[in-house]
């Protein structure tokens, strides 16, 4: 079991998973999002390759209306 912090909320998964699998779990597959892991950007091209580990902190963002 691993615990990730996703947008400030703890979430548990049975085993380490790639970012693309996390996005699928969150119904974000195919959505335009950007991902930061432990303060570093993870480019889209690496979402399949980067395996998330226990304690990782993730920020997943979108564009919203703003001034």
């Amino acid at each position: 079991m691993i615990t990730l912090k996703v947008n400030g909320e703890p979430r548990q998964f049975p085993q380490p998973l790639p970012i693309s699998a996390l996005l699928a779990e969150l119904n974000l597959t195919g959505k335009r999002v950007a991902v930061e892991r432990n303060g570093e950007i993870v480019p889209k091209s690496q979402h399949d390759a980067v395996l998330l580990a226990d304690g990782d902190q993730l920020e997943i963002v979108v564009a919203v209306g703003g001034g």
Partner: protein
Amino acid sequence: MDSLVIAGKTYSSRLLVGTGKYKDFDETRAAIDASGAEIITVAIRRTNIGQDPSQPSLLDAVPPSRFTYLPNTAGCYTADDAIRTLRLARELLDGHDLVKLEVLGDPQSLYPNVVETLKAAEVLVKDGFKVMVYTSDDPIIAKQLEDIGCVAVMPLASLIGSGMGILNPWNLMIIRDRLKVPVIVDAGVGTASDAAIAMELGCDAVLMNTAIAGAGKPVLMASAMKKAVEAGREAFLAGRMAKKIYQASPSSPTTGIIGS
């Protein structure tokens, strides 16, 4: 055509608009269309996990293929947060590097923290971003931001969302006179005359959100702002007549008046 050039790219509209505070995306799009704006600001926020993924997104309503996105750092109070936000924005928008930097001082005034703003600008410019920077109307800071390499300097007219209009036209004129990059009045515009005055002062463009979104009829106000910015620019280029205090000057011939 008297166009606006920012970081080497030419725009025909001198009105930049925000996309916040509208009642829905239809109104957002209608107002932006009425404004004629080509550059629109967007905010970067955490995904709403658990949200219905079929919900429309801002990117569907105002596609980045049609508008130049200007991701902002609204809500950031430190240079570090602003830098992180814009790196996320660049990743989100496929390497798009034109950004609006704003680092705020406190949540009551939303006044820019120029110390953190300068720090963030240094890092972002070195990192390859084209930085359009929100700042106070301090001419010294404005010049420092230009010297760092910001592609546009955007002093406030008055506090964000206040609608108080242009409180210090003299500082805006000093900034316009001393800088080479576009000077864009950002924040504080309340109605069309405020936008026209900003342009008459010689500023290169105006950026606004609440003045349109917070109007009784946002789409109509967007149209008014478009005309005000165009009128103000034309008046600036035309060169206004000198003000002649205590000295009237008749517009009609002074001879041939009946009974004379």
